[in-house]
């Protein structure tokens, strides 16, 4: 048994997962240190989505473990994995991150709605609201655009920032972003990434970002390249 390093937030060992015959992903080792920024890339079909499903506890590996902090996520029952995800993981989609029927602030506070722990970490019900406003401002959404506009009226770039604020509120240990910049143009992409990284650092959250845009890799501590059926590890 390999001893878990204390500095490691996330530790995956001998992951195997497949939907039918054969494994979509077979990853011998995947680790993320506390506060580390990891860039995951790979061609289509290399198992990026599957890896994210395993890391978030949506799916459970056929073999191997997913451990986050002291919790072996992959051996928890489904409901506990869902609660763990609510408490410890912030997630950003490629796009369409927001619930159209909630306001901008409520979209950010959605994380706290499902996780009392994160609400508490944000300072309680009232403070969470202020923290949400602060996060949005830090991510470049000022207060005036908050109150006047519906989320459906926001540009894609603005929507992604609201999504980032939702992932960050309550400082979860791990932020997972699935191609968060692919719907943005180059300028918006760099601006978004800079802000996201800065806020991750502030919250001392680790970041796992999946993208096929290799140009982003320079912002990260480490790059993990997933290949078809196999996974290699590289240090950027």
């Amino acid at each position: 048994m390999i001893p878990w390093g204390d500095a490691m937030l996330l530790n995956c060992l001998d992951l195997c997962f497949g939907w039918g015959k054969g494994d979509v992903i077979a990853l011998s080792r995947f680790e993320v240190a506390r506060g580390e920024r990891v860039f995951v890339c790979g061609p289509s079909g290399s198992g990026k989505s599957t890896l994210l499903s395993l890391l978030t506890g949506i799916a459970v590996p056929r073999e191997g473990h997913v451990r986050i902090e002291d919790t072996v996520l992959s051996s928890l029952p489904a409901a506990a994995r869902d609660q763990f995800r609510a408490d410890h993981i912030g997630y950003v989609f490629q796009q369409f991150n927001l619930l159209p029927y909630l306001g901008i602030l409520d979209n950010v506070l959605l994380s706290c709605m499902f996780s009392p722990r994160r609400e508490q970490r944000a300072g309680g019900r009232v403070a969470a609201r202020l923290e949400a406003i602060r996060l949005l401002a830090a991510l470049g959404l000022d207060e005036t655009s908050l109150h006047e506009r519906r989320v459906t009226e926001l540009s894609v770039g603005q929507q992604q920032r609201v999504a980032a604020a939702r992932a960050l509120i309550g400082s979860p240990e791990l932020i997972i972003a699935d191609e968060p910049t692919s719907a943005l143009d180059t300028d918006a992409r760099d601006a978004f990434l800079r802000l996201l990284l800065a806020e991750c650092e502030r919250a001392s959250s680790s970041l796992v970002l999946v993208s096929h845009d290799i140009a982003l890799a320079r912002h990260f501590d480490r790059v993990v390249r997933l290949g078809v059926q196999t996974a290699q590890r590289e240090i950027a």
Partner: protein
Amino acid sequence: MRAPRLALNSLRQRRFAAVLTVITIALSVWLLLGVERLRQDARSSFASTVSGTDLIVGARSGPVNLLLYSVFHLGDATNNVSWQSYKEIASLPEVRWTVPISLGDSHRGFRVMGTTAEFFQRYRYGSDHELAFAQGRVFGDLYDAVIGAQVARQLGYHVGQSLVIAHGFGGMRQMLHADKPFRVAGILEPTGTPVDASVIVSLQAIEAIHVDWQSGMRLPGQAVSADQARGMDLTPTSITAFLVGLNSRLSSFAVQRAVNEYSQEPLQAILPGVALSQLWSLVGAAENALRAISAMVVLVGLCGMLTALLTTLNERRREMAILRAVGASARTVFFLLVLEAGVLAMAGIVLGVALMYATLLVLHGFLAAQLGLNLGLGLPASNEWLLMAAVMVAALLAGCLPAWIAYRRSLADGLQVHL
């Protein structure tokens, strides 16, 4: 977890479809409760028409028939009761009072009932209400008439007004008892019973207007004037039926048997309550059909809701994935959709009940006046609560279908939604 808030907000986003669904459910609930209430009130209205009367005696036909023509003025008597038989039965020791009724004439579509002044003391309706006069008093003169509230209102009659009684229910000119006009002596307060639509005169008056008639025809050349008639013996030879009050209810069956076995004439005595329940068993089939139809309408309403929920499921996969990402379990997704069905049904039920009361309020006066039907505006009765609960349960069960689909999907989709 603040799922209710999410469900409400989500519904608000789709408010057009949601409002339509609520209206559909509301209309079906309105129909369901309306039918139920109409049924109940029709029953209690019928039941409250005869209270305080222990037996009704008439010619032998059928219990329901006798009940209908004697009290509700529906249909016609097949035969009469001779005055002598009436007198004999009235003098039985168990009998406390009797009120004779003589029907067969009309005034402008309203039935004319010949009876004695005792009718006004003995007749009871509802929970032991007595008849009360709005204007005037009981007939004193031979050609005095007392009219029901509806007659007065519809014909605009006042005390002192003269009226002419027609023979039978036709309106033919030569069939009028025009030679012996009546005067309105009193107007009754509304009762919600057939009394409201009656013109009440004395038995002697009925006799008087028929002295020069035979077999429904005026005897030619034997006209008797109104004043001449006053001097004649106006004891009737027969009556249509009579109401009986007993000294003790316990003797009801004994007196009933005595009447039914009366040898001089084929008569029957009925217990109003028993005859009513026989009437209900007749009407029951129609009632059940009506209830079945309204239940089907509720089903259709719920199917509408199901359609509204199911058609949006596809476009809501994104929403479900977002909720899953922030930590909602698939079970929460299931709960959310059942909750939406519940919210829609609840809103529909509340609106439906409100609609029913609004309708009752509007129709209250009309139905009481036209049909003598007293629709209660009271709070929902226990069976109505039960119906509402049934609609709610059915809606929640129906909601399980889209909820189950969304549950399966959110398990399969996880956070990856490929639209």
